[in-house]
């Protein structure tokens, strides 16, 4: 455990994760899924979190909601949340089923999931599901809750909201269900919305519509969003800042522009190079990252990315874990050679 004194959060800060560790006890052994993740979200800001499958981005998000699986151990770290300027809540000190935590879930923090097809209860109408949440957190009556549900469905631009409120999930298309899901997550005006790959299961056209909707809702309601995705294109579209995760660690954070134009970490660079670009010389194969994501029981020594890194230096990278190097602006990179890597050849 670190014994540093806890820094007070700056006034614009909404959520701060500091050195969060999440482990899972499995039959095969202990899986260290999240190893010291620190990031923060400011009020009204969109933070994009990018990473491959298994990088721990969803697990980190669920630890904010305290919705981890039962075999999870929150080994270390602190999560602080400030829904109102005067009230700071230490989420990591709350228990999963505590009253305070339940008041945060759905009340101050909304969450949207990846699978709109299965993330809504099949036996309750859309309206019932929204009304339950509204009645729970707002303490209003049935009629008022129903009114609120219709209003929310209108806000997420579902056609004929007064009829939609009595529809069941199986009667809606994927895009419509995701809109209903958003309405559900936003039903109590949360100050933070966690969107866990909300467009991954949708086709590209619907994806664009949902992103537009989220952007306009964010402008209108002013909530902050943590947008988890593996798609850099989506991040560029919606995020203000980006955190790139690899094997349970944040390897680089920075503004969208910094990440896209001045990526500092070899992993970020490699990810960006694996995306096709318009105007690129034709007939060139896209670059791939060599190797596979290591299996969680054999995490490499030193920098976890070193076996796949094009710039790895033996003797340094495979021995010592790098610390975070901060740059002017808000960019910070977890690499031994941050700022010393050769300019990219495009």
């Amino acid at each position, binding site marked *: 455990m670190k014994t540093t004194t806890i820094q007070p959060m700056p006034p614009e800060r909404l959520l701060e994760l500091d050195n969060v560790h999440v482990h899972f006890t499995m039959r095969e052994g202990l899986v260290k899924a999240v190893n010291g993740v620190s990031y923060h979200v400011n009020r009204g800001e969109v933070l994009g979190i990018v990473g491959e499958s298994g990088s721990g981005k969803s697990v980190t998000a669920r630890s904010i909601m305290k919705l981890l699986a039962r075999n999870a151990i929150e080994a270390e770290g602190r999560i602080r949340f400030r829904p109102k300027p005067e009230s700071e809540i230490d989420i990591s000190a709350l228990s999963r089923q505590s009253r305070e935590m339940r008041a*945060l*879930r759905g009340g101050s923090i*909304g969450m949207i999931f990846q699978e709109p097809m299965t993330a809504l209860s099949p*036996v309750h109408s859309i309206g019932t599901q929204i009304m*339950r949440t509204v009645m729970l957190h707002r303490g209003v009556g049935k009629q008022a809750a129903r009114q609120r549900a219709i209003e929310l469905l209108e806000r997420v631009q579902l056609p004929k909201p007064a009829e939609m409120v009595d529809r*069941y999930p*199986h009667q809606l298309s994927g895009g419509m269900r995701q809109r209903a899901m958003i309405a559900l997550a936003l039903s109590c005006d949360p100050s933070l919305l966690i969107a866990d790959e909300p467009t991954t299961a949708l086709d590209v056209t619907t994806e664009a519509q949902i992103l537009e909707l989220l952007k306009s809702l964010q402008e209108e309601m002013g909530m902050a969003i943590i947008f988890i995705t593996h798609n850099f294109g989506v991040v560029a579209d919606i995020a203000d800042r980006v955190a790139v995760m690899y094997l349970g660690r944040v390897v680089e954070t920075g503004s969208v522009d910094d990440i896209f134009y001045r990526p500092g970490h070899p992993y970020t660079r490699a990810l960006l190079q694996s995306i096709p670009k318009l105007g690129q010389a034709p007939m060139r194969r896209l670059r791939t990252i060599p190797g596979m994501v290591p299996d969680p029981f054999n995490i490499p020594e030193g920098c976890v990315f070193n076996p796949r890194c094009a710039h790895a230096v033996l003797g340094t990278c495979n021995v010592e874990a790098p610390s975070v190097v901060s740059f002017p602006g808000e960019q910070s990179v977890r690499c031994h050679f941050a700022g010393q890597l050769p300019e990219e050849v495009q």
Partner: protein
Amino acid sequence: MAGFIFRRILWAIPTLIVVSFISFVIIQLPPGDYVTAYAAQLRHSGDYISLEQEALLRAQMGLNDPMIVQYWRWITNIVLYGNFGHSLEWNAPVSSLIWDRLGLTLAISTLSMLFTWAIAIPVGVYAATRQYSVLDYVFTIFGFLGKGVPDFLLALILMWMAFAWLNMDVGGLLSPRYQNAPWTIDKVINLLSHLWIPVVVLATGGAAGLLRVMRANMLDELGKPYVETAYAQGLSERQVVWGYPVRVALNPFISTVGWALPALFSGDVITAVVLNLPTTGPLLLQALKMQDMYLAGSFILILSVFTVIGTLISDILLAWSDPRIRYS
């Protein structure tokens, strides 16, 4: 919804006609008829009946008519006059034999079904939400024991224990002195003191199976994303579990309500025989053995009507509880 129910009821009519005909035919299928069985019984007890007398009996009972004529006579009497015919063996109207026992059968069976559900659902939900806990294993062991021990054996053991240790009067539903007494508080207490054995016996077997079903269903449902969504709305664990996955996991239960109804009627025949219960099961068994065709036929007809009505009820319940069925 109304249209759905109406269509289902319309479909029930041809089903019942076919079922009544088939059940009548099946009862006639074994070689011989009631007179053959009756004569065999008489000879067994040393009496003598001549072939002429047999033929006379057959003619009186209309057993020589073609089967279709017999069926027509039987079914028109039921539909037009509510007359189920005459039991050949008991020499009494079928309806008086059946309805007497039917009330008690329904009482015992409904009670044991409610008991079954009251045990199986909460225990199944608990075992699933606390999978691999100590209590889950304990319930699993009891589940397999309850499923593995035959009902009639359990009935025998319980009767013996109640008789030998508790000095209770077991078997049947009433002590002899209350048999023909009017209904009083004492009679009800006497009934309850007899009723617990059949209810416990019937409920344990059923609950053991159903709790495994409930546990498996719940485990399926608990892993689904909508459960996580419900947690993410800030609902407490109890609200989530009972409000969402249990609702979906109950569907298989609801769809078996329909089969419960005929099972209620036929009861657990062996258990009923062992416990000497005046229910319908032993009577049906006897009627089939004696080829008492009007009695047996009426039994099977009522059983089929119950099946059809039961299925109808469970269809309606299912449509009410699961919108995916209502709209597709």
